[in-house]
């Protein structure tokens, strides 16, 4: 902060981008609020209150929200207790019922993806327990997580999910073949299964032997999700499921999540989109600085409440 003030005093103009309003009010002269790519106005910092700024950050009209049908919730099935990894995640606990969509909200860097990493076995926790169906799980790798019934659709599909240069069959049947099948491939079976997924999710593709990078973003995401529909899992973790996805594919993906919930699956959804978080989740766990600071019912909370919980004002 002192460095920035020093630069400012030397006549250098500073654009300071942050979610943390207390910082903006501490050193800012003027503030411009952006929402969904448009400016909501520019104000002098001494002429506006924190609440007013927060109010301008939220508020979308009803069409941005997807209306999903409710699903009866079953017993608590997946539970995380006191999950801790030094510097990243601190004493995080939450439970997800059968048929529930549990949203994980928070700013970038709040620890949501790290929690998912701890659950899926990409890093070991320092402390804490993971329970599924009344059984304590020990997960030391993604393969073990998959074997135990946990599926993960990662955040950045190009970097973490898509096999570029390979066709739709290889991309779709990846986990099914590797974890649930023997050493010799069933070429006919995997082609049929892929074809069924393409139909079910309405993937716009010319043929299953097309390369995955030739598809549009939304269709690529459908293929990546389809990978996890070939086998039965109990927990589905979606990390930013509709990032870079067109509106038509978005709705199909939401539909799919509700269908999974109806079949009694427990779903965890990380999302940075307010409308998505509020429309799709039954409950939302708010993370801030690595801790789960609150768990709220999505029906009983407004966008403004959520943002304030994310930022901490």
């Amino acid at each position, binding site marked *: 902060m002192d460095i920035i003030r020093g630069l400012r005093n030397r006549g250098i103009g500073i654009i300071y981008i942050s979610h943390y309003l207390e910082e903006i009010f501490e050193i800012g002269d003027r503030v411009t609020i952006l929402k969904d790519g448009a400016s909501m106005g520019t104000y002098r910092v001494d002429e506006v209150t924190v609440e007013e700024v927060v109010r301008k950050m939220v508020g979308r009209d009803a069409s941005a929200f997807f209306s999903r049908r409710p699903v009866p919730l079953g017993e608590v099935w997946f539970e995380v207790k006191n999950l801790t990894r030094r510097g990243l995640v601190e004493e995080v606990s939450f439970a997800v019922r059968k048929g529930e969509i549990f949203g994980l909200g928070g700013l970038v860097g709040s620890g949501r993806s790290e929690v998912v990493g701890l659950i899926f076995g990409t890093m070991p926790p320092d402390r804490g327990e993971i329970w599924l169906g009344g059984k304590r799980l020990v997960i030391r790798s993604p*393969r073990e997580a998959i074997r135990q019934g946990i599926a993960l659709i*990662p955040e950045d599909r190009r*970097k973490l999910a*898509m096999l570029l240069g390979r066709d739709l069959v290889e991309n779709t049947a*990846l*986990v099914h073949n590797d974890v649930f099948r023997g050493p010799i491939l069933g070429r006919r079976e995997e082609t049929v299964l892929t074809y069924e997924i393409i139909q079910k999710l309405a993937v716009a593709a*010319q*043929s299953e*032997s*097309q390369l995955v990078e030739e598809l549009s973003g939304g269709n690529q995401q459908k293929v990546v999700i389809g990978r996890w529909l070939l086998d039965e899992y109990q927990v589905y973790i979606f990390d930013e499921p509709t990032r870079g996805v067109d509106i038509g594919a978005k709705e199909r993906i939401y539909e799919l999540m509700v269908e999974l919930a109806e079949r009694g699956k427990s779903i965890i959804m990380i999302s940075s989109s307010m409308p998505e978080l509020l429309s799709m989740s039954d409950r939302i766990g708010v993370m801030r600085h690595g801790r789960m600071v609150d768990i709220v019912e999505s029906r009983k909370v407004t966008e403004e409440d959520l943002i304030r919980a994310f930022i901490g004002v």
Partner: protein
Amino acid sequence: MKKNRLREKNVLFRNQWFFLLVVEIGLAVVTGIVNPRFFTASNLMNILEQVAVLGVVASGMTLLIISGEIDISVGANIGLSSCVMAMMMKAMGSSFLPVLVGIFLAIGNSFLVGVTSRGFKAPSFITSLAFISVFQGIALAITKGSFQTIYGQFETIGMTKVARILPLSFIISIGAYCIVHFLLTQTKLGRRIYSVGSNPQAAYLSGISVSRTKLTAFFLNGLFVGVATMVLLSRIGAAQPSTGSGIELRAIGAVVIGGTPLSGGKGRIIGTLFGVFLMGIISNTLNMLRVNPYFQEVTFGLLIIASLAVSAFSSYGRNR
């Protein structure tokens, strides 16, 4: 999907190995016109024999490169393994055990390259580069720099001609291509190799062990190198530390010319097969046309560059 068939036809023309086949047929025809001796059975069989050893090495190399790794020590590996095989044959008189030991040694050497790469998180290019010196040094030390001759002792593989014309060594190389083809297209291991070559992170998050897959590729690479050493030793009847030196460039060249990118995740063994044949044909052609043998090296280098140009231009349309 009905459109499947339409796609399949286009795919044929886009494949690098198809271009290769056309080029090779063209070359063969031209050479045959200039020097009709090209098309005699003995010359054609000669070509097949010349590239048999290269074919086996290139098959193993194909697996490794698709998995995203590389081993430039295969030449030195052959040098060391062939010397050990020859020395043991001289000492023992028999050949079964020496061959077995030689093959295990070749496997171990390649595996060592892989383990050091994974263990120290170093590129396999670097670790294999280092092991060139190690293998050569050990070979020089145990042979004291001398030739190990075993003339007449181990000729069968190198000299046998099935039905009196088809060289056994060539049949062994066809076996190598077939095994790699089967592995890559019909097995889970083959899929894993493609997956870790294409996107190791995605493979990991899908339950695949990237290290295990790559080390298996190194293991298989070593196995193929061992078999190639056996065939080479049988043909030459002697071994020295520099035996096989330089084959890594030709093997990698054949793989790349065949359309398998060094970045991994893509490629087919049929490409390697045609890449190896092209080298055999070119070498034979240049001999038939009485071109200076040193220019063969220049030709191989230019060929690799030309094939890189072909793959760059064919993906130009797609990726722009």
